């Protein structure tokens, strides 16, 4: 091979558009997909759901609350992709807008319960006196079935998405709290924490630098699990009429409204249900993959 042809190949390679990944980068991306297929599958599905929720108004949807009694209970067709419900509302539009409620509730609850539970768990894991009281209170909360507690909390307040988030967060917090406390109790016995104490590190710094980073992996898995569980709880609450107000479409209340007709018009229940299932599955896959990837001992060079 002559020098000129080598040179030519080199020039051709540099003029490739820069947005395309170079072969090396492509190899790394494929390697990541290969090592963590669950993260990729779960992440892509979650991303699609988030995009659907954000872009709902531009995805050929109609007003999800506009009534058209003359066009009620239409089968899925080119005009009504998922059909219409018993009030003539477009199920496709309602399911897409419903994704907003479900995802908002799921992520918000994961964040609220995660932060609240982590804070309480860290404090009670490090302070013996507070521990006994806090954990008995958490036991008390956990002894009430989650859905019943959420219903009771909703009954105390007005139906709104915000109140749904608060109610589900309260029921999920004890689980995070228990997890974090357990991890803290085992970590504080670790020699590296004792070495840090012996090195004169102050307790807040120990919590921040030694304890918290090592609770993140289990916390992440728990947060995704809570996110999935919160979406189901929200749908359950909406389904029994104790959650999102009927004026806001959510997967739960779409299914609730379709329930009466489900033997003759199953698609009204089917479409929101399939969206809910896929989202919950995706979030759980993501959490599972993250757990493996977040562990530096298992992580190979990215």
């Amino acid at each position, binding site marked *: 091979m002559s020098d000129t042809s080598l040179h030519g190949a080199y020039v051709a390679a540099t003029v490739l558009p820069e947005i395309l990944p170079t072969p090396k980068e492509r190899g790394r991306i494929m390697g990541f997909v290969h090592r963590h297929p669950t993260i990729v599958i779960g992440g892509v599905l979650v991303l699609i759901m988030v995009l659907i929720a954000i872009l709902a108004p531009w995805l050929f949807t109609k007003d999800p609350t506009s009534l058209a009694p003359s066009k009620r209970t239409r089968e899925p067709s080119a005009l009504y992709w998922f059909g219409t419900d018993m009030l003539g509302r477009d199920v496709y539009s309602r399911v897409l807008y419903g994704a907003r409620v479900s995802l908002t509730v799921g992520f918000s609850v994961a964040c609220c319960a995660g932060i609240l539970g982590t804070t309480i768990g860290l404090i009670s894991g490090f302070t013996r006196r507070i521990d*006994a009281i806090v954990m008995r209170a958490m036991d008390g909360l956990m002894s009430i079935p989650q859905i019943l507690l959420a219903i009771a909390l909703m009954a105390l307040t007005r139906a709104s998405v915000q109140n749904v988030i608060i109610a589900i967060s309260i029921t999920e917090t004890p689980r995070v709290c228990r997890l974090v406390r357990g991890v803290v109790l085992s970590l504080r016995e*670790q*020699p*590296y924490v*004792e*070495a*840090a*104490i*012996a*090195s*004169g*590190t*102050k307790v807040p710094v120990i919590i921040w*630098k*030694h304890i918290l*980073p*090592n609770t993140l992996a289990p916390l992440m898995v728990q947060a995704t699990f809570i996110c999935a569980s919160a979406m189901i709880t929200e749908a359950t609450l909406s389904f029994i009429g104790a959650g999102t107000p009927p004026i806001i479409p959510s997967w739960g209340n779409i299914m609730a409204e379709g329930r009466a007709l489900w033997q003759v018009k199953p698609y009204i229940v089917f479409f929101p249900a399939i969206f809910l299932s896929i989202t919950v599955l995706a979030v759980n896959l993501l959490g599972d993959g993250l757990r493996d990837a977040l562990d*530096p*001992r298992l992580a190979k060079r990215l």
Partner: protein
Amino acid sequence: MNTTRPLLEVKGLKKYFPITGGLFGQTTAKVYAVDGVSFDIQRGETLSLVGESGCGKSTVGKSLLRLYDVTDGEVYLDGQRIDNMPASKLRPIRQRMQVVFQDPFSSLNPRMKIRDILGEPLTNFGLVKNNADLREKVSLLMDKVQLPRDAIDRFPHEFSGGQRQRIGIARALAPGADLIICDEAVSALDVSVKAQIINLLVDLQDELGLALLFISHDLATVEHLTHRVAVMYLGKIVELTDRRTLFSKPHHPYTKALLSAVPVPDPTAPRNRVILTGDVPSPINPPSGCRFHTRCPLVHDRCRTEEPQLRTVGEGHTSACHLTHAPGELVMG
């Protein structure tokens, strides 16, 4: 600095762990982990604390470091009493007393780079001015423990057990301590690496004038690096003497049993082994009288009722046994 007193003095150290139970977590029993231990360590000296698993030797180490609050007794570092010092005032003490743990895997935070692990004590004690200074000091520490300087940006899981233990030693050296407590520091390593780490510790001791409290269950290891040895049994020191005396003229029957358990490389060498039967009794309910009487081959009536005190049996040699003079050879009866 007080030069007449030993670096570390321990007088009647006791550490009992409560066993809690019941609905309200009340104390139902106590583990007498350390029950009246006294010794001292001079500057630049190595004292080994040996004994079987569960005899309380690690508890002594952790009590000295104030990782545990002591139940009773007095601990002086350089003439300053530290056992009852409030936690807020301990920092300058911690700078002078450091620890190397047994398990090289769990003693380094898996999420911190070596630079941050070694930098932590340096920053805590205000020994560095800026980042460049920190990097320089950490690099010097790496030199001291004979690890490559460019390894400081790596994570602990990228190192072998022996290398991790060197990092643990470097962390203990970082604040410029006078006393390093080595809690089974070489027990988890394989033989060749163990020898390297012991040599490193001995070299560092010569170079820096460190005092070492070397906690170990392995007399063969201890023999290579120690000046004096304290033998512990069930929360008490039963014999304390210099290395040569301990290995040539042990007094306490328990020490003899331990020594006869040390493997000898020559299979044809004549051996007079003292084999102990049974397990170490529970420290929750220690035996009356001499704590060793349940397993002692030379037990007599007095041992069951009266607790022997440590008494001098030779120059710098104390032993807690009722037998007035050391019997020449132990005969299993």
